[in-house]
């Protein structure tokens, strides 16, 4: 899960309180010369323009975890960061399934893998420079990967995928604890100024996806100030960060030393003279400014709030400027395989059959803005997604009879866990400051009651949900939390990027902070992941990806609830607007303003 916005919860509560007063007539939202239509951004680039100039005014209801490419884990950040940093590869700037392809950016191709599958080689583009005009070298990319993955003593936020699979014979402690520039990760080999090779400990066919992470955005060692690097990020892309004040504002201006010759595919084109990002706005206020043309883009990437959503849906002119796309996030409920009686698969299957997904969907906000009813772990945007439903129920409304039958089987094996009347008492955790999540927990409670499962809802604050409560093994076991509400946003849109941290031991952290809330691990799944990462054949990967999904569903470790969607609005003057499917949000890397 790339962290979603904590502040949105508070802002949302205030938005609800103010909804009554704030929702006057919205007919003043000027929409005249638009050629857009509802969901046009799902299939086409709306209002395409290469017309340079103007100020692109962005805002969001939260702030970055960090703008340092080696220290950020927010989805919008990975999307936006391409404006001031070039990773080796990136996601294609195209809507629909084309957008799920990787294309080279700083590298000349998406990576050459050795026949044994253990070495990946990238060559850097000629003429790639930093904002000070100096040349980007392969050593800088190596350093960037080292600092972000091995230097987590200082850069605590970012992902550490490279560290898990790249060879490291010297047990490197990272550039901040080991200040000798001669030391480094032995498995990352630099050849000349423009070739970099990664030697892996095992086959890893998702390596191009790793190369698309901000971890590979080059950082010159001489300019690195560790945790303070965010104050002076050195740009390698078309814009540079001219100022960033946490909690207030970020300003980007074109990087004069950017050479378009180093970007033959035209990924980085300056379309605005300046990009401003206001931070920590109230979501409701932000939405209104967006609808009234005082802002151009909501950088949060999680869609408009409920007030604006109803305004947009009620007004065809506004609706034609909106897109309701999948966010690549899944809302689901985990069933803890280590908490009795859910170590018994029949008890888990009973829960799978008992849940009424239609009531949960309403609780989460309905189809638009909420999501579509889910029956798989992979969401429809992802490669490997295959429609299937292991626990079909009439109209998705749950099947209490089938659930009771499963429960009866379970009761025979685990009679001690049931009350005299054959009732099962379980606890369901949810985040108390997320009203939609709590409401969906209540819906589940009602559905499970029909199947003789008595649910007690335990609510915990979202900021400690993983570290201290639902993701803390000791807490879960001592409090017998059998069920947990969960929402997960894929790191990248395939089975590994989505599910590695959710259904494998990689997501289990005994000291707290687990994201595999069900403590689920299956040798079969592990074996399938090995198979998945061991082949570079796209068709095989897609097939195995679907198998992993279905295996986890067969084991009834997770109850998928909805494939999340977000309603994104774009004012008519915003150019090059479309929904990037790999990020599950608008592509922020090429937006501009037109017709100023």
């Amino acid at each position: 899960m790339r962290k979603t916005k904590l502040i949105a919860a508070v802002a949302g509560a205030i938005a609800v309180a103010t909804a009554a007063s704030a929702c006057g007539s919205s007919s003043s939202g000027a929409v005249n010369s638009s050629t857009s239509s509802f969901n046009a951004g799902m299939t086409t680039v709306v209002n395409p323009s290469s017309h340079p100039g103007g100020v692109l005014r962005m805002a969001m209801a939260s702030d970055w975890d960090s703008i340092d490419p080696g220290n950020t884990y927010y989805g919008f950040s990975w999307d936006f960061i391409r404006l001031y940093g070039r990773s080796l590869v990136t996601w294609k700037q195209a809507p629909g399934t084309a957008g799920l392809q990787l294309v080279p950016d700083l590298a000349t191709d998406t990576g050459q893998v050795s026949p044994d599958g253990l070495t990946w080689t990238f060559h850097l583009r000629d003429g790639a420079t930093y904002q000070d005009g100096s040349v980007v070298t392969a050593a800088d990319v190596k350093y960037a990967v080292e600092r972000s993955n091995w230097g987590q003593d200082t850069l605590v936020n970012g992902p550490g995928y490279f560290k898990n699979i790249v060879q490291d014979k010297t047990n490197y402690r990272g550039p901040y604890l080991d200040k000798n520039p001669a030391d480094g990760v032995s498995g990352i080999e630099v050849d000349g100024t423009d070739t970099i090779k990664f030697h892996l400990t095992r086959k890893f066919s998702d390596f191009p996806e790793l190369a698309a992470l901000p971890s590979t955005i080059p950082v010159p060692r001489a300019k690195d100030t560790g945790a303070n690097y965010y104050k002076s990020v050195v740009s390698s892309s078309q814009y540079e960060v001219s100022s960033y004040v946490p909690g207030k504002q970020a300003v980007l201006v074109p990087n004069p030393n950017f050479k378009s010759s180093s970007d033959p595919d035209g990924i980085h084109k300056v379309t605005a003279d300046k990009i401003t990002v206001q931070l920590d706005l109230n979501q409701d206020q932000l939405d209104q400014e967006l609808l009234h043309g005082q802002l151009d883009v909501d950088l949060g990437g999680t869609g408009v709030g409920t007030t604006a959503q109803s305004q947009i849906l009620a007004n065809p002119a506004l609706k034609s400027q909106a897109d309701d796309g999948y966010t690549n996030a899944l809302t689901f409920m985990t069933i803890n395989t280590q908490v009795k009686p859910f170590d018994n698969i029949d008890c888990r299957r009973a829960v799978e059959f008992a849940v009424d997904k239609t009531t949960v969907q309403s609780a989460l906000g309905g189809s638009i803005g909420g999501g579509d009813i889910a029956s798989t772990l992979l969401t429809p945007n992802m490669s490997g997604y295959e429609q299937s439903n292991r626990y079909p129920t009439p109209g998705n409304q749950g099947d209490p009879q089938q659930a009771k039958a499963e429960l009866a089987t379970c009761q025979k094996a685990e009679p001690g866990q049931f009350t005299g009347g054959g009732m099962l008492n379980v606890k369901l955790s949810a985040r108390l400051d997320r009203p939609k999540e709590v409401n969906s927990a209540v819906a589940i409670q009602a559905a499970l009651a029909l199947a003789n499962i008595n649910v007690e809802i335990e609510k915990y604050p979202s900021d400690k949900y993983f570290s201290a409560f639902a993701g803390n093994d000791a807490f879960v076991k001592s409090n017998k939390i059998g069920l947990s509400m969960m929402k997960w946003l894929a790191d990248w849109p395939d089975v590994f990027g989505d599910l590695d941290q959710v259904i494998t031991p990689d997501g289990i952290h005994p000291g707290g902070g687990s994201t595999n809330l069900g403590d689920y691990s299956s040798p079969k799944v592990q074996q399938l992941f090995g198979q998945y990462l061991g082949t570079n054949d796209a068709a095989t990967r897609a097939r195995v990806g679907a198998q992993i999904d279905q295996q986890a569903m067969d084991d009834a470790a997770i109850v998928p609830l909805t494939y999340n969607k977000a309603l994104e609005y774009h004012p008519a003057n915003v150019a090059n607007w479309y929904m990037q499917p790999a990020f599950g949000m608008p592509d922020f890397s090429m937006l501009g303003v037109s017709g100023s």
Partner: protein
Amino acid sequence: MLTYIVRRLLAAVGLLLVVTLITFWIFYILPLWAGQTPQSLAAAYVGKQQDPLALRAVVDRFGFDKPLFAQYFDYVIGIVHGRTYSDGVSLIHCNAPCFGYSFKNYEQVWPTLLSRAPVTVSIALGAGVLWLVFGVLSGVISAVRKGSIADRVSMGIALAGVALPVYFVGPLLEALTGRWNTTYVPFLSNPFQWAQHLSIPWVALAFGYAALYARMTRAGMLDALNEDFVRTARAKGVRERKVLYRHALRSALTPIITIFGMDLGAVLGGAVLLEVTFSLPGLGLLAINSIQQDDFPVVMGVTLLAAFFIVVANIVVDVFYAVVDPRVRLA
């Protein structure tokens, strides 16, 4: 008088120490009592993959595993003497008053507070002037024309003002004025825009206070107009207008100014609801966002600054009282 102020200031320092102790206890110690461990506290600061190095580093930086009194002692020493932090790359000397170091943004807390303070001060001063002027004015009119239409209307509005929270009034004003631009502009960069952009937040914040002040002023004026010394002034032949403002208002205003000082002190500590409603990047919004992000050092800093404003406002008010009312003797 001077010794009095010095003594009050010393007492204020003691009070602020107690405030630091309590806030420190709430943020750093209460969670441990509630069953959290240094590791689980640190887990909230680390990316989702929970790198052990990162966890260890966070524990070290915050000193979560140090004895509690040592953590608190370090904190207080930092305030009076400064202290040194490591951000992993270099040592950062944080000069006194060192209110800690935010490992969220890798900034010292004190400069962060100073950068946010102008917004809150702008809000407080502008709104304060508005609510004082309009509150007192309508209160006086109501009292003098007690029972008149003007009295009933303004007291009706005042009742509404007391009852309606700023997060209702704010969006209402925005809707009425048609998407007023409320982005903060520093006073020094453009005073006109500063005032223009802040005017709606000022009105929104001042409305409730003005209502309260109108009611207090009205009650105070009605009391004052029944005072013997007002009758004396009339018996001397002093003109009615002068009786009102020189004799009645002067004594009715004293408690109002006292409360004004306290209210202003509280608003200076962060007009949280207003700043959230209008997304004004002041101390209140900083506090809210820092709480959301578990940025304890900043939260503690804002809390202390707010306490400081209130304590200082108390002293100022007491001294002011002594200056205005010759019967009050400071000792």
